[in-house]
């Protein structure tokens, strides 16, 4: 029995880890609206969410049954088999959720736990059937197949229903309130507030508090069957309060609505999803306790788990406290929230996702549909709609922290109302909807209606949404297969299996942590480069110069690594520098975006003044493109195991590399330190580089004629030479532009 005590201890430790990774992923469900709209300072939002969670955990006592008997029938399993299943489930869950957190993708912790239980239970059942030489068809007796199918249906239902509801509700709300909603709240605030709080209160009662001892089963049943009365009474009650607030105070009534909604969703999350993190270890402990007192602990079947077992309130509160602490400190929770907020943000900017065929096709189709709708809509209706839905009126004021919200409070409140309404309605009808899927899709639907996905961003946002939805299906698939595999390992390897898998989990968490930290650092660097609103033209110009200096430095560093790695035929370093090209591209785009912003700020200066400045864009693009070309050519050449550069070529290219690095770094210093430009020096360096290129060009021709250098090698060699020369020339042009800009700025007429 000692091994099982060890396994139970491991399960408890895994429960703590799972709570951490689970909250990191699910926090977005209740934080998205309040963080996105910046309804209050971050700490206020976090306090409200924490209180919601603490309230929620005390309501979750009878939710633990899913782990015990929701997916499989415990009467067919013995305690060692159940411990195997539970260990496999917990280990898989931690790896899976941590990976999703690392990539900032929200997923359903319910779907993951259910499919992990399914995978592990199938594995153990199949092994049992095989060992007893039984018929594999009997597997259906072991597994609750109906539940699994219901969850898959839930994914599809969530996606379609929540998105459509979000889009429609936001469309009509915006039509009524417009983007300049504040004056309208004076008259319609009561109706809006009543409606919002009615849905949110109903949601709290039906979803969050259904397991509480405060409400008897009869009361819950009454609430379920008298929804209309409940909603009407709440509507009138809250409507009156909000109308009073709107008319006689200066309180923006949308703020309390969003904060109460956040509290409600946080509470529902804690009440319902706690089971996903600690339900399995608690079931494991129960199985152990039942077996321990029986005369044959290793062979007794677990019918006892069919019964309803009370949960310890202390344990629930400890779990709640861990969740609260995680909510405050988890950086991965911020990453997941950032993904959802950025996919729905009203303004344009740097997009996190790229584009691919399906997203382009969807955007194309939707654009065609809108065109059709545009043609058949009467002009008068069109005029009214476009006037009321004009997003150019949207001028958000900076929030308490000085940052602009991603969307306004009206959208935040619609997100919360619709999500609460959809989840409550589905729960009342016993439809299996995931809270994560609903909140995400509602947020995407409302952002679509708000025209947040304009022509400039729609493809990227759709790619993001498709990636998240794809992740949901992957969750089920990965959870099932990995858990199945882990269960097999644990079944046959016993203690060794536990140790191997624990090491694996530790390794995956360590790797994902380092990857996430690195990614965060990179993104933080890029974000810090973006020019904020409300700055002056001179500051913007100076910042652009500084950023260009950093950019040249990065290019120089990457080129050096690329040249050296190509000489040494080091695939690993080339791969790493190839991955850096994306960052450089983002950096280039950020600087260019800043230059456009600066040009906008310089609108009162003369055209010649600004024209020079705008020419930097071409030079920056040329440098980034040539840098990328060198790296891609080198990577392709070396990665395909083509023959390496000849010694003589290496020597020549080394000299070219030195000249390019010197040119780039000197220019960088001049821009970074605003040093007086020694243009002659840069010109000399550039001429030196051109002379080297010409000289080596001739030498290479001779090598081609004597067949010393093969075709692919020559292509690579010329790639190095020509791109280096281009970088040199563009750098000189860049410095020339900056020099002239400074001369104009200082009132000196450039020659």
């Amino acid at each position, binding site marked *: 029995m000692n091994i099982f005590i060890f396994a139970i201890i491991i399960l408890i430790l895994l429960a703590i880890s799972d709570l951490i990774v689970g909250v990191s992923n699910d926090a977005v469900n209740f934080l998205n609206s309040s963080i996105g709209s910046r309804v209050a300072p971050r700490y206020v939002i976090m306090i409200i969410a924490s209180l919601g969670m603490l309230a929620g955990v005390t309501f979750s006592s009878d939710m633990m049954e899913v782990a015990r008997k929701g997916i499989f029938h415990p009467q067919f399993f013995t305690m060692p088999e159940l411990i195997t299943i539970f260990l496999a489930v917990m280990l898989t869950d931690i790896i899976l959720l941590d990976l999703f957190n690392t990539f900032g993708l929200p997923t359903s912790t319910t779907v993951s736990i259910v499919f992990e239980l399914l995978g592990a239970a199938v594995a153990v059942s199949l092994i049992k059937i095989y060992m007893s030489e039984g018929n594999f068809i009997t597997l259906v007796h072991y597994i609750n197949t109906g539940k699994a199918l219901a969850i898959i249906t839930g994914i599809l239902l969530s996606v379609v229903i929540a998105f459509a509801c979000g889009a429609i509700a936001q469309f009509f709300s915006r039509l009524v309130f417009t983007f300049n909603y504040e004056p309208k709240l004076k008259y319609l605030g009561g109706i809006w507030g009543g409606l919002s709080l009615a849905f949110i209160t109903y949601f709290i009662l039906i979803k969050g508090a259904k397991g509480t001892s405060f409400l008897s089963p009869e009361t819950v049943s009454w609430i379920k069957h008298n929804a209309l009365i409940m909603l009407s009474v709440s509507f009138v009650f809250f409507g009156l309060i909000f109308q009073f607030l709107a008319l006689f105070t200066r309180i923006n009534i949308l703020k309390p609505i969003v904060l109460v909604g956040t509290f409600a969703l946080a509470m529902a999350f804690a009440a319902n999803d706690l089971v996903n993190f600690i339900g399995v270890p608690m079931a494991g402990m129960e199985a152990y306790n039942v077996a321990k007192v029986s005369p044959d602990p290793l062979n007794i079947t677990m019918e006892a788990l069919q019964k309803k077992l009370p949960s310890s309130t202390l344990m629930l509160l400890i779990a709640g406290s861990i969740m609260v602490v995680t909510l405050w400190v988890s950086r991965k929770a911020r990453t997941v929230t950032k993904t959802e907020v950025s996919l729905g943000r009203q303004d344009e900017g740097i997009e996190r996702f790229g584009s691919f065929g399906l997203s382009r096709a969807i955007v194309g189709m939707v654009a065609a549909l809108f065109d059709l709708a545009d043609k058949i809509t009467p002009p008068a209706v069109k005029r009214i709609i476009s006037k009321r839905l004009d997003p150019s009126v949207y001028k958000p004021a900076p929030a308490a922290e000085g940052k602009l919200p991603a969307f306004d409070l009206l959208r935040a409140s619609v997100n919360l109302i619709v999500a609460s309404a959809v989840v409550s309605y589905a729960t009342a009808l016993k439809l299996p909807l995931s809270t994560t899927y609903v909140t995400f899709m509602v947020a995407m639907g409302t952002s679509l209606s708000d025209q947040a996905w304009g022509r400039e961003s729609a493809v990227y946002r759709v790619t993001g949404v498709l990636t998240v939805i794809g992740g949901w299906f992957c969750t089920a698939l990965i959870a099932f297969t990995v858990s199945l595999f882990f269960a097999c390992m644990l079944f046959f390897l016993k203690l060794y299996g536990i140790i191997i898998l624990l090491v694996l989990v530790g390794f995956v968490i360590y790797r994902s942590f380092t990857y996430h930290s690195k990614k965060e650092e990179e993104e933080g660097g890029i974000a810090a480069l973006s020019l904020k609103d409300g700055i002056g033209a001179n500051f913007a110009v100076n910042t652009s110069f500084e950023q260009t200096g950093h950019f040249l430095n990065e290019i120089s560093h990457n080129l050096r690594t690329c040249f050296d790695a190509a000489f*040494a035929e080091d695939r690993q370093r080339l791969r790493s520098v190839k991955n850096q090209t994306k960052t450089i591209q983002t950096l280039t785009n950020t600087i260019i975006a800043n230059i456009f912003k600066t040009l906008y700020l310089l609108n009162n200066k003369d055209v010649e003044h600004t024209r020079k400045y705008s020419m930097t864009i071409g030079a920056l693009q040329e440098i980034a493109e040539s840098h990328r070309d060198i790296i891609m050519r080198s990577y392709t050449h070396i990665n395909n195991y083509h023959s390496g550069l000849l010694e003589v070529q290496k020597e020549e290219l080394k000299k070219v590399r030195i000249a390019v690095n010197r040119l780039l770094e000197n220019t960088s210093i001049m821009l970074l330190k605003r040093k007086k430009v*020694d243009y*002659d020096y840069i010109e*000399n360096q550039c001429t030196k580089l051109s002379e080297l290129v010409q000289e080596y060009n001739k030498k290479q021709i001779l090598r081609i004629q004597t067949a010393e250098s093969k075709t692919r090698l020559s292509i690579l060699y010329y790639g190095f030479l020509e791109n280096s020369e281009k970088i040199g020339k563009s750098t000189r042009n860049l410095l020339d532009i900056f020099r002239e800009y400074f001369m104009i700025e200082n009132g000196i007429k450039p020659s």
Partner: protein
Amino acid sequence: MQIPFLSKFTGMPFNALQEHAEKVKECAWAFQQAMECYGSNRCDRFEEYMKEVDQLESHADKIKGKIRASVHKHSKTPVMEFQLFMFISEQDKVLDSVEESLNWISYRPSSGMPENLKKDFFNLVDAVITPIEELSVMVAETKKYYKSYSEKQRKIVIDIIQNLRKSEHEADQLEDTLKLNIFSNETDPAAVFHLVKLTEMIGSIADHAENAGDMMRAIIAR
């Protein structure tokens, strides 16, 4: 013999070392600009470059002090500490040589650079700058080595040190050629003395860079 795990806790002051190497590199570029200015008939910024080198030198001195204090604070083996000080000292001598060369030029400001020797001088300066540029890369790669302790990373550092030696050797050859040309082209004894000494001073810049490389080789030796 180094113990990788323990070294993680007794960490070398790499950020400061890198900062110092960057200052040395900047100083070398300022020197090259000063030399080009000295060789050009229309440049009047030589004094400015001298001041710049002076400022960079004093910045580097402050960094050196920071490194010394930091090394004393973090207990290291005496051998490592000695090697580290020798390394900084050699890197510092690069700066001293640059400063001395510019001062030496300033003693005969009006004479300028003989037209027929200009190219040789520029080539020599170019050649001595290269190993200095390698120094900062060497420190950056050594820092990576002390994070990973991978043999591959150590090899990268050793390759840089070899490049450094090669560059120094090229600089030596150019120094010899230049001296030969000075003796065959110049007749004025004062000019010969001034130019030969200048050539030797410039050549010594690369020597110190090479020595710094050798010290680093000793630090990463197993």
